């Protein structure tokens, strides 16, 4: 059993974002980076699946600059067996089709039984890189997977998809297949000290791709702060306690719920 997990490095969730001078993206250099949230869950699912089978390997694949090595190191420390780093310094300028195409070329010969990805990246939020990859590799996919029925694993695998408004649906897939994993599907393990030590000797292969221009790539013309849709009354002027006093007064006299 071989499972490839796609993991992307993105700006830290809580970072203050500054728009770049050309207004086409943020200043990445300004912000702390982290592993995309749902990708952490994708890795956890992969590890648990291999552990349930008691055989096989988990291969992490990331496309990004040298700095994205921290994503790989962290994944290897948690238990992934090896990694493929597709080195692209200016990866944030690529469209999802270009990313999927480049990854497909780098992993096609691996012939993985399963590919797990996050369901959406927290920066570009294309929500489609995995699905495109599945199509390019000629394998079936499911998105927003919220449970993996590991007991069912054989030539097929049964997974639970999340639908809207509290509905769910089970599907059984022929393998190989690609699943995009929803956040919160399990408890993510921490890297142990032993894991961190072991990670140092795990293989990381570097790939330098040849990325062709993609005429149909949507182009970001301008990035800006969202326009406000409402006149918000800011209370307390940065003082939470004063704001609380003012708010209760508003709830009493204007909204009339007290």
């Amino acid at each position, binding site marked *: 059993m071989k499972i490839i997990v796609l993991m992307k490095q993105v700006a830290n969730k809580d970072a203050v974002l500054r728009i770049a001078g050309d207004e086409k993206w943020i200043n990445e250099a300004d912000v702390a980076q982290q592993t995309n949230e749902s990708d952490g869950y994708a890795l956890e699912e992969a590890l648990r699946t291999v552990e349930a089978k008691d055989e096989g390997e988990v291969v992490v694949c990331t496309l990004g600059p040298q700095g994205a090595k921290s994503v790989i190191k962290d994944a290897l420390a948690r238990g992934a067996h090896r990694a493929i780093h597709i080195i692209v310094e200016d990866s944030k300028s690529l469209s999802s089709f270009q990313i999927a195409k480049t990854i497909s070329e780098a992993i096609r010969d691996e012939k993985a039984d399963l590919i797990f990805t996050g369901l959406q990246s927290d920066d570009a939020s294309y*929500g489609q890189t995995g699905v495109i990859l599945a199509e390019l590799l000629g394998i079936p996919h499911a998105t*927003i997977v919220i449970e993996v029925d590991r007991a069912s694993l054989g030539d097929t695998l049964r997974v639970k998809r999340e639908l809207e408004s509290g509905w769910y*649906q089970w599907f059984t897939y022929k393998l190989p297949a690609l699943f995009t994993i929803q956040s919160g599907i399990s408890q993510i393990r921490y890297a142990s000290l032993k894991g961190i030590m072991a990670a140092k000797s795990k293989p990381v292969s570097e790939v330098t791709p040849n990325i062709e221009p993609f005429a149909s790539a949507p*182009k970001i013309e301008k990035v800006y702060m969202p326009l406000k849709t409402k006149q918000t009354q800011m209370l307390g002027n940065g003082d939470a306690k004063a704001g609380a006093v003012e708010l209760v007064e508003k709830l009493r006299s204007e909204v009339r719920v007290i």
Partner: protein
Amino acid sequence: MSILVFIEHKNCVLNKTSLEAVAAAQSIGKDLGRGVTAVLPCDKDCSLAQEIAGFALEKVIVAKNEKLGAYTPDAYSDAWEQVIKAANPQYVVMSHTYQVRDFAPKLAARFEREVVGDCIRYASNAGKLSLTRRIFLGKLDADVTLNGEGPYFITFQSGAFRGDAAERGSAPVETMDVEVGEIRMTPEDPFQEAKASVDLTKSEIIVAVGRGIKSQENIAVAQQLADALGADLAASRPICDSDWLPIDRQIGSSGQTVAPKVYIALGISGAIQHIVGMKNSGTIVAVNKDAEAPIFDIADYGIVGDLFEAVPVMVEEINKAKA
């Protein structure tokens, strides 16, 4: 070369967000001088087709095959591929539902395209469209232009257009028999997890907690506020994922959709999947220590600061006011 719009349904019962897509497609059609055709994949002569024919459309195409009864990404992609090859559209417009997220990127990839997804609005300049998408979890907007040749695949966020704005009219219905190849996944029946024991749609006041609450023990802080206000407690998804509150307290696209008189969001950033579940509330209050949190964009009252400082004072003041 027209605009195709996807009509989503389950057993010929319309998913109403599709009318938002119809409104979007009609609006783009007007701006670009193109007609709009609706596409309905179905395993029979879909009874929904007549209803859709009552909108201002060039025509309604029922893409028909026995394998299109239950949704699968393989069958839907095959059906759509043939409709696109036959109709040769310039644009394909859909609502960004979970089903569309599932098959649209696969379909687009067959044409060596990608989806410009989850757009919140568009502008048209000299026959060219510019689409606006939210990025960085709602913290920033990006204006995006389309390049290369059509078809362009565009999906709009739920609420970006009003379904009741879809223009009425009368359109002919056409059936197109489509071929569907091997289907590599077997669906079971959709189901709901244990029926919700609390119905938050009836709540007058909701106090909702997000990841800013930090720990399960701290839920008590929010509970005190809820008690003082006679409010119900609700939460963002990560709180329910962590089992700090039961899943039937979750607000958002995968949880409940509510519109109470007052919605107080404590330590919730305001990701779109949360906002769609509460944006129609009468008065929205946000307490968040990040002045740039997107929740403030839709709040009527905002407090920038630590919820652990604000909430106890709120409780004290409410009790004083009530005394």
